[in-house]
């Protein structure tokens, strides 16, 4: 063991965050099927939607944006729930809190891992929706990807904070959606609106006001949640 009287220098905030995120991804990877099943979840969600409506009343292409973003939201919730369940299991979280890293690093690390998870799901959900509702993704793939990223950031920023809170309560699974969903509304709405316009091949400027909301939301809540996080882990 290193000489105790010369204690090692703790990692910087971002490095620590990355270590934590990498650890989460390693766990994710060990339980390899986790991601796979998130996908299946999204896919099945999409099919359920597809069959839940009689296509005679509503044109499939009008459903597509809604389906895409509702699925996105709910599968995001699923991923988030796991995030702190892992830490809670054998109180591994305590080890994190007792380690020489800022609370903020823990938040950022967890959020980063969640972001990758949600993004991963989205990468598959997107083409799947296009396929099911035969929506031409033609030229709008890149804008859509960017949109998905913006939305994912917002969802994860809030979701990570709340799953940290939910996990310390008696209602873990039920409480997270309760707290998070109202915060998801502006995201889902804007994202769906933008998507609809993209699919309709309208000029991007039309989606501009929605984009502004989305971007503003991301900035405000990433900052706010990072600052608020330390309050939620102290006991």
């Amino acid at each position, binding site marked *: *063991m*290193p*000489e*105790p*009287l010369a*204690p*090692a*220098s*703790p*990692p910087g905030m971002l490095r*620590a965050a990355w*270590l934590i995120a990498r*650890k989460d991804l*390693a*766990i994710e990877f*060990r*339980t390899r099927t986790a991601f796979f099943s998130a996908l299946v979840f999204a896919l099945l969600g999409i099919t359920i939607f597809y069959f839940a409506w009689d296509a005679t009343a509503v044109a499939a292409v009008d459903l597509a944006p809604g389906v895409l973003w509702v699925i996105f939201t709910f599968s995001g919730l699923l991923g988030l729930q796991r995030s702190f369940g*892992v830490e809670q*299991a*054998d*109180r*591994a979280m*305590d*080890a*994190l*809190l*007792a*380690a*020489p*890293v*800022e609370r903020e690093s823990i938040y950022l690390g967890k959020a980063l891992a969640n972001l990758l998870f949600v993004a991963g799901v989205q990468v598959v959900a997107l083409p799947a929706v296009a396929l099911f509702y035969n929506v031409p993704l033609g030229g709008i793939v890149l804008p859509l990807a960017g949109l998905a990223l913006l939305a994912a950031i917002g969802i994860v920023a809030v979701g990570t904070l709340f799953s940290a809170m939910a996990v310390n309560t008696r209602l873990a699974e039920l409480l997270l959606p309760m707290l998070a969903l109202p915060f998801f509304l502006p995201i889902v709405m804007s994202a769906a609106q933008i998507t609809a316009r993209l699919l309709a091949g309208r000029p991007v400027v039309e989606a501009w006001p929605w984009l502004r909301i989305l971007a503003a939301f991301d900035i405000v809540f990433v900052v706010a949640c990072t600052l608020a996080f330390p309050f939620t882990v*102290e*006991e």
Partner: protein
Amino acid sequence: MTAAAPVVQAVGLVRTFGGRRAVDGVSFSLAAGECLALFGPNGAGKTTLLRLLAGLLAPTSGSCEVAGVALRDGVAARGLVGLVSHASMLYAPLTARENVEFAARLHGLAHPAAAAREALDAMRVLDRAESPVRSLSRGLQQRVSIARAIVHGPRLLLCDEPYTGLDEVGSAALSAALAERRAAGAALLVVTHNLGEGLILATHAAIMRGGRFVRFEERGDVDAASYAAGYRDLVTTDA
């Protein structure tokens, strides 16, 4: 800091859980190389005290400092502490090695892999280094958990019933590790229900009850036999 200054210092620590005073005004300090054996009945507040010292719980009142810094503020100061708790604090899906290495990285060790191997070897569990923690027996998990706590060579080592589930080999390894830490100038706080175990290494001994230290002596002034007797009727007579 100078060797004279206390490694850990608690002043009037109080922690209540919805009115129940789990820790009710504890003050003490340990200098480098000192080892406090902490005894006490179930529900005395030992675990709560350790969690306060590790900065995992916020004290209701009072304060505790490690190397002169309050843990909740001093990030670096947290690097000086090692904690063995009731829970293993390990990630079940990861292997023993990955768990200890992760801790080593969080503490910014130069050679995490090497440090992890050393710690696991010290706890005689190196041969299971590549098994997922989930698949380890309870005693083996305890060994890994201890390895995690000592991998960064803490200046202050807090052990909550660390001998739990350990066999002869494990206990010997733990005792050796504790001795090594002490020799390296660390302060130790060991909670246990086994007076014998506790008094071996101790330079100080304390008995906790109802959240307070009801006894606190230098090990020198303590005769094991009479101490055991005293402890027994302290515990058995209701608070």
